[in-house]
């Protein structure tokens, strides 16, 4: 680097740039937090949805699945699983989920298997409500198609 460019200048860019962009990040965060209620529809987070999220976490679903594209990539994306299997009806999707969760693990040899989590009917319903709520978050229209 040229002699003109001193260590002091480099240090100032580091401190100045670091502080400036961190403050910008904090500012943008506040702006996003202000905007989020219109995008995440938090008014629809019922107790069932909240319990569903806790179940999602306590069974480490993210260890195989992805949710809004984040998580593991071993099992299907679930942020749009309601769009994929619900046929637009919450009731259909609830029925589907009860049946689906009860039949795990599927006996196909060599296929990736989902463990049997022994959830109660109520728990499956909570999990389902959580996934329905998630599917309605405005996520800039991701994923590109229903396959996730």
């Amino acid at each position, binding site marked *: 680097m040229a002699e003109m460019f001193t260590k002091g200048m*480099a240090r100032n860019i580091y401190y100045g740039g670091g502080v400036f962009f961190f403050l910008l990040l904090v500012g943008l965060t506040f702006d996003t937090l202000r905007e989020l209620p219109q995008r995440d529809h938090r008014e629809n987070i019922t107790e069932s949805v909240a319990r569903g999220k806790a179940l999602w976490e306590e069974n480490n679903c993210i260890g195989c699945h992805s949710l809004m594209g984040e998580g593991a990539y071993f099992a299907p994306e679930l942020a749009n699983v309601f769009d994929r299997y619900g046929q637009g009806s919450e009731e259909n999707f609830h029925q589907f989920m009860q049946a689906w969760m009860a039949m795990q693990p599927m006996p196909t040899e*060599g296929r990736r*298997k989902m463990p049997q989590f022994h959830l109660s009917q109520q728990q499956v319903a909570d999990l389902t409500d959580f996934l329905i709520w998630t599917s309605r978050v405005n996520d800039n229209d991701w994923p590109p198609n229903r396959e996730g």
Partner: protein
Amino acid sequence: MKFESQSVAKPYFIFALALFTGQILFGLIMGLQYIIGDFLFPYLPFNVARMVHTNLLIVWLLFGFMGASYYLVPEEAGVELHSPRLARIMFWVFAAAGVATILGYLLVPYAELARLTHNELLPTMGREFLEQPTITKIGIVVVALAFIYNIGMTVLKGRKTVINMVLITGLIGLAVFFLFSFYNPENLVLDKFFWWWVVHLWVEGVWELILGAILAFVLIKVTGVDREVIEKWLYVIIAMALISGLIGMGHHYYWIGPGEYWLWLGSIFSAIEPIPFFMMVMFAFRMVRQRRHQHGNQIATLWALGTAVMAFLGAGVWGFIHTLAPVNYYTHGSQITAAHGHLAFFGAYAMVVMCIISYAMPIMRGRLQGNSPQAQKLETFAFWAMCISMLGITLALTVAGAWQVALQRLPEVGALSFMNTQDKLIPIFWVRELFGVVFFLGLVAYLASFFVGGVKVADRQQQESTEKAAEAVCCGSCN
């Protein structure tokens, strides 16, 4: 070794490598589960194996960072470590907590672990990379605080070199941002938003300060280049890392709820993110070219150069290929992400830890100019085996990801389902697994290199350096 207390780094390094070995073994199991879906089911479901794989990675890197700090901070500060005893106690606390947590993952179902550790009191579990029971997270905070106190007091007592200041800033940032792991609201969008304040601000933020500081330290030692020059480079690199990386966090906010301006901010700033890594490559090669002495520990120099190159490829290039929003729309959460994750973590963080280990371990074992040529030869072989096989893993996953996008994401009609797509990718997953086995063999060779004896380079060079002493140029490392 200039100070007795630097040797507390040794158990940290040894334990880090033991955990690293575990990480790779679980990686191989998961690689096989990608091919034979029910391999080891139900004894070791994929989610458990993955949790062990990623958590071991995080913990061994933390052990590596701690070892690196205990080694280099006293030397930079020019004083003994504030409390070697505290460092030794914390080693056992952290090791015990780490082992107990991993055993918890392996021995009881995760839901049971959540119940046993009373996750309901302060729910923090079940989020990617933050799967640790809340009590373990509290333990991590305690260990981090004790560690930062110890390192901080040492820095305060001695010379406040740029390397020490940058390192301690990075370490404090690491501890502060980890606190966001305790925030887990019922609203998934908020949860995800602040989850990235741990994950992104670690790996694309403060960890880069730690990486830069360790790399700069090793380069000063092995090249003898003037400290002023190295410090200037360090400042510029970490400045660019923060300037690009802080708002670059936007590339994680595209599809999880936050508003549309993040598509622009994330794309623009993360397009700049490769620059600091590119500068790191220029920096490392230039310093080695301008070296004032030929250090006997040549493999440490190779690790330093390798870290810069592989970090640039993994974090810089493989980050860039899928970071622009229009591309990421199709690649988000595909095997492309996995490709980037593997090369970036290995190139930037795993390699910098092996770099400081390669430099410091021989010194702590009384080999001031590095291990014997035979040991270095084996370590060089291990270096190339691990680097090349990791590139192989990355390329295989990249092909898998591109194919996955083509089959599952791009078609508007007739897209294949996730599971059917995965079936089509099996031949590529075999290639990945094969490279994984080569990586493991490289790791075995690396570990074996610690046990190779032979004539110490030091004995041979001691004589030479005495002869040269009269005409020697100042190496800069003592001022």
